[in-house]
């Protein structure tokens, strides 16, 4: 009953194609994490703001994003954003905007998750720190930028990195827009050679190895940060 894995699939030509796919996956992950943290910080501060409309907007944004499956958001963006961009910038219908729309979708979605982590991080910094910074005469922006956020980020870095690892796994969902990420490429090769199962097993192993070691690193960081 043993399944015969076709090791000949692991050849240089296939690896090159898979490597290109990995670059796409990493590109989406990195963009998602970076934009997610920046936009997420802004959302978190809006949510904590005493200006009602701002905090309502942020709360609604986060609730909506957390209540809809990511794959649906990706599909919507895949269907809507290209048309929108083509109309706004007068691009020809042939321009490939799958990558752009995926990047936008992931970034906006990721920001919702990051903002909740960041909000908890900000609230975890004691109120006395806020008072001390204000008592020195800092205005709100300085208080946040110089005193609260650096401490909050130090506390939540492990959580944000973990979220990044989850995002890396979620990038495989871009297959709905037929974008050739690592997973998509592996699937394509499998279909072409009639060895889909082998390629998917291999792709799964790669995801596992990367995420496993990344989480180990994060765990170590976590221990360091809390000593």
């Amino acid at each position: 009953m043993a399944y015969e894995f076709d090791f000949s699939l692991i050849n240089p030509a296939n690896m090159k194609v898979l490597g290109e796919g990995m670059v796409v996956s990493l590109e989406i992950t990195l963009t998602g994490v970076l934009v997610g943290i920046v936009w997420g910080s802004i959302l978190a501060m809006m949510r904590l703001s005493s200006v009602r409309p701002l905090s309502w907007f942020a709360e609604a944004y986060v609730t909506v994003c957390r209540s809809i499956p990511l794959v649906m958001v990706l599909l919507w963006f895949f269907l809507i954003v290209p048309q929108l961009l083509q109309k706004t910038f007068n691009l020809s219908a042939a321009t490939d905007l799958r990558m752009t729309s995926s990047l936008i979708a992931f970034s906006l979605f990721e920001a919702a998750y990051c903002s909740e982590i960041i909000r908890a991080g900000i609230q975890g910094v004691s109120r006395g720190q806020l008072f001390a910074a204000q008592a020195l005469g800092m205005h709100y922006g300085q208080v946040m930028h110089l005193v609260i956020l650096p401490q909050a980020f130090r506390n939540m870095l492990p959580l944000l990195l973990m979220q990044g690892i989850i995002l890396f796994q979620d990038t495989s969902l871009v297959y709905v827009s037929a974008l050739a990420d690592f997973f998509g490429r592996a699937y394509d090769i499998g279909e072409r050679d009639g060895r889909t199962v082998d390629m998917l097993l291999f792709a799964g192993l790669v995801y596992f190895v990367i995420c496993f070691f990344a989480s180990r690193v994060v765990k170590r960081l976590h221990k360091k940060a809390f000593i």
Partner: protein
Amino acid sequence: MIEINNVSKAYGAFQVLTDCTTQVAKGEVVVVCGPSGSGKSTLIKTINGLEPIQKGEILVNGTNVCNPKTNLSKLRSKVGMVFQHFELFPHLTITENLTLGQIKVLGRSKDEATDKGLKLLERVGLKTQADKHPGQLSGGQQQRVAIARALSMDPVAMLFDEPTSALDPEMINEVLDVMVELAREGMTMMCVTHEMGFAKKVAHRVIFMDEGRILEDTPKDEFFGNVDQRTDRAKQFLSRILHH
């Protein structure tokens, strides 16, 4: 210097401050005492607008703290404040703690700020700790750095919110010594504290609060010398903290 006129404040239905009126003149040292929950800390935090008030007005150096048009940040930069739990910035070194406000708020150059910061650090006897982080210092040392940080802004007055309450007994004096020295140099000070020895030594007036009201606002000699004239509540409080 500081004028508090008919100040009232409530958290929802809970009245924290009721009709408080007092003033601190330039160069005066006023000690505020009273049982916990009497509103002392809240009162002192209203002076630089950290706690907003609902009624009354507060003037600091002629500026109305409660006027929405007042630049609160600017006003706070002129009033030093020391907290019960020190509140040094844990992610910065001692030197950075001492220079952050000077550079970012007062616009001083880094060299000028460092120079000033180190001088103050020497004054509180901690020059050798300049490159450490707050977590590496004892509570008493942290509080002395916090006083130096407040002084680095060249304040016109200093507010102390129970500066020794979170300290181990053997560290209380090193902080009080710095405060006594400051008082003798003529700094305008308002101190929430239970250290009656400190009050006897340097205070001009003692304010006694209970349940959000100022029950006594008396010259020091009168407060400690003529105990029979005190309100019953103050007598009770004094007898509890003085005879242990």
